[in-house]
């Protein structure tokens, strides 16, 4: 294994910019590089703008046309922390189950509104799942189509009221979104009408 250390090609911590064969410009801090597989791992700011998170990009340099080092690393990279593998494994399993259950609901013919609502609830309450076409939140509240506030059923209590609030807000946001789009559409129509 005469593979050179990662530092010989890209020093960990340096900032690199590269252009993929698909025309995508990627830029970030080098986290790791594997010479044999030509895989370069970059860490960049989160695409969603969340401060504590980051995006990790794995790039195959075999399909990169342009690589330039923006600046070299200034300090030695920190030591690697040990990882809780079981935690990672659990996350992988949970993510997979979530996706499959969601896909299951989608293939069951759940409306787009229902899927959006599910996404919204899931952001707040992880413990929600599809049961046929019903959304079950915390095994307590059941939201059945068409997923309006009045469709939230369950034991009266804080859970139900909380879910109702979420649902209510969700549809309010959707409405505002729609009205906004509508107004924009109308605006464009007017413009077009005027122009014509």
């Amino acid at each position, binding site marked *: 294994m005469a593979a050179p250390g990662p530092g010989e090609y890209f020093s960990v911590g340096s900032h690199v910019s590269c252009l993929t064969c698909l025309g995508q410009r990627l830029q970030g801090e080098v986290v*790791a590089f*594997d010479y044999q597989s030509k895989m370069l791992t970059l860490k960049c700011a989160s695409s969603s703008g969340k401060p504590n998170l980051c995006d990790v990009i*794995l790039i*195959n340099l075999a399909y990169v046309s342009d690589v330039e080092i923006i600046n070299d690393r200034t300090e030695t990279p920190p030591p690697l922390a*040990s990882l*809780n*593998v079981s935690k*990672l494994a659990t996350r*992988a399993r949970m993510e997979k189950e979530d996706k499959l259950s969601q*896909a299951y609901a989608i293939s069951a013919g759940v409306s787009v509104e229902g899927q959006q609502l599910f996404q919204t609830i899931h952001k707040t309450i992880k413990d929600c799942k599809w049961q046929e076409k019903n959304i079950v939140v915390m095994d307590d509240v059941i939201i059945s189509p068409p997923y309006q506030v009045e469709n939230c059923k369950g034991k009266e209590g804080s859970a139900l009221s909380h879910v109702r609030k979420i649902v209510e807000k969700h549809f309010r946001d959707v409405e505002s979104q729609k009205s906004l789009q509508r107004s924009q559409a109308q605006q464009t129509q007017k413009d077009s009408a005027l122009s014509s």
Partner: protein
Amino acid sequence: MSFLDFQLAYSGVYANMRMVHVLTSVVGTKCELKVRNGVVYEGVFKTYGPECELVLDAAHRKGPEPVVGPRHEDIVESIIFKASDVVVVQFKDIDLNYAKKDNFTDSAVSARLNGEHKEKDLKPWDGGEQHGSDSLESLDADMSNGWDPNDMFRFNEETYGVKSTYDSSLSSYTVPLERDNSEEFLKREARATQLAEEIEASATYKARVALENDLRSEEEKFTAVVRAERESHTPSGRENKYVPPGQRNKEGLSWGAGRQNSPRMVQSNNNVPSTRPGPHDYSLSSAADRVLNGGATWPSPCPSPSRPPSRYQSGSTSLPPRATTPTRPSSRPPSRPTRPPSHPSVHGSSAPVSTMPKRMSTEGPLRMSPKTQRTPRAHRLSSSRGGIPSGVDFIPHSAPVDASIPPPAHSSMSGGTWSSVVSGGEQHSDLSLTHRPRSPKQTTLGSSPAGSCPQVGTTPIDPVAVPVSPTTASLASNQAITPSTEAKESRVQETRQMSPVANKEIVKPVDTSPSIGRPVNKGDTLYLTFPASHEASTGDKIAPPPPAPTMSTATPNTSISPGSSSSPSSPSSSASPASVLCPAPEYKRGPEVTSQGVQTTGPGSKLDGQEDKEEKKDSVQEQVRKSTLNPNAKEFNPRTFCTQPKPATTPTPPRPQGQPSPSVVVPQPPTVYSQTVCFPQMYPLTPVSPGVQVPHMTVSQTKPYRAVPSMPQQRQDQHHSQGTPTMMHPASATGPSIVASSPAYSAQYFTCSPQQFTSQTLVQQMPHYQSQHVFSSVMQGSARMMAPPTHGQPSLVSSSTTQYAEQTHAMYGKCPPALSVSKLLPMSPGPIPQSYSHPSATLHAQHPQPSATPTGQQQQGQHAGSHPAPSPVQHQAAQALHLGTPSQQQMYSALTPTPPSMNPGPNTQSTQASFPSAQQAVYIHTQQVQHGYNPSHMAHVQQAHLQSGVVPSHHTTPSHPPMMLMATQPPGGPQHSLPQSALPPIPVSSTAHFSYMAHPSGITQGTE
């Protein structure tokens, strides 16, 4: 050694620590993977392979338009992407700290701060010129004790107008004494004076006054660290004191290993003239004592009970010191002769001789009764284990192991290295040669416990190993020391594994990363010596126990019980465990692999026996110990004393037979074979209990080595000597492992499988997984390669692993025949074992590659001679596989983890025992399934075959990659869930994964 060596051991991306870290950190997150043709797949990142193959679970092809979500039919259970097909992978919104170990343990905090302290030099404060003389110096010059009360009163009166009512006579509280000259008054005054004198003369009064009038500052009294020169040897009371590492070294330089372990500490303590005769003895006594102390970390190895324990981590939990002492005696006598030279230099100061008598008296009795000795060892082990997190489970195992270990140490010179490596702290390199062997094992045991998950799996293995060891031991003794290079390698691997365990001391043994790092260090030193010592020790120890253990342990493995009674049967039983473990090893090293498989089984059976014994309580233990003791004693003594009756009489073959139980012996031979193999196997198993497995493996390996200079030949010889049964076992063991691994995968795939139908690719992928240890570990074993059927083209991913696929294909195709063969062969009672052996056999036979490896063939041939026709084939095949492709080994190892998860453990007398059995069962199941027990399985088999057929094409056409990899398999959708459920591998636990990681390196080293 150290990290560099480690990394070298790993292949591909696995050698790149940073890449491994980053990729592992993003496991379980959603990612978008763009392949060369621009198609984007989204899925949950499951794991990665050594060639940077990426596995996405629940992946679907992302369309151009943003859809709310994929339909269930669009989701592929899992997809493996070859690195060459991947353009970019994006993980969004990742919390890289998600899986970091907690930062709030002492170890975590100290780990972060470690080293910074040195940078902080304390400097006297310099106030500069500002305050100068006025404030500071004036304060220093002012000797007054603060303000005078009158000044305060005056100040308050002037400033605030407050008039104090203070009366110095305190008339409000007391009554003034009116003096007179009356007789009465004088009398009373005299009386008062007398009382005052009495009081003031009392010690308590003086002490209190001294306290009050102590001129030392509070800092001096309570805070300051005064580094006055201490005399290295304080008479007494030093036992429990903490001795900084540096000072320890001063005291016990001879111990070289110098690890923190108790041995040195003990010795240093011993040096102290007054209190500890015992300690001195220890030093003098030599390796045995050291071994005991160090290896066990056992609290009590030393006569001077309290000290060592406190220092040792395990010590606290450990059983009473005295219990351990008994064991020492036996070891000591032998060791002393040899040790004296080395010890003198170190211990030198105190008179060892004088101490000797004392110990003799105390220990003497213990020595007399071998049983007692062994039991103590067991206790030590248990105690040590107890210290470890998972100690309970291990304890039983450890005890047996320990017993076996000590003897080897004595017998083998190299033992010293072992102990040092293993124990890390324990290492008394010079003295401990004999003892060391024990310590390593102990450490391994202990370590294994640390990893909770691994423990279970390991425990079973251990038992198996134990049985094996006896034979190996016998061989070793007879053959003397023939540590072959292979043995070294195996040792190294073992040591690595061991090291993690040893690292128990380290807070993070559980963590995969720690284990990896640690192993290396230990491994280096220990490896070399180990083989001989381990073999000897294991053999000695094991030999005795085998009979009893096998009997008792028989319950865990149904097959095993018969084996105990008769060699043939036992082999089968042992084989089954071995097979589970062995698979991976075998692949890597054809001949060796097979042997490893056997060894593994042997250890497992041993472990089982140990466990059972423990369960049975003292009576059983005693029996076992007795059996073990005799063999051990002989072997050990001979080495140390140079009077080993058994060795002299009959080289390898005779002893095994003559010793405890033929059956036991038989398992061992297999173990020998498996030594090299063992590691790989160990890996898979290791996840469950790395430490335990490793020890066993090492033991078995060592034995074979010693017995036979050339691995293959020796092994064969051993087998022959042992008899056909033994032969069968190894073969079966090796065979099973191979088969098992493949079956497990296939089973998984099958379950997955909607895709399977469509895909040949699936099969190919399967092999890949196996090959990718990381994958399996990360994946949790459950990861199934989903080939997109829709594309129809061979999966690109599979192309990389075409070779594997071919092998696997061959395996599959052969499997049916093999099964039949195995059925025939499996004379052993345990159905499961048979099935294991069979699968492997079939696989081996089918593989064309076997022919390539001469050694493997030779072994096979030998095996064949002993065994029925079927067995030979298996062996050959196994060997061939091993030789042919290291990658296969990896794959197997990966697979192995899954089996545990499968959790079939029909034979579960003890959890540990059950694990091995479970693994076996799993393998069997998979095989069975393929054979067609279950309709679904049958289907899988067919698919596998199909895949095999496809594979070649893949190889030929790697360019297609993207297409092949990702095809979504709508039809398969529903099945996904099932496969997942089927894939219990996850249970294995993270620790297991880590172990895998570590193991690969070990394996690679061995191969390299």
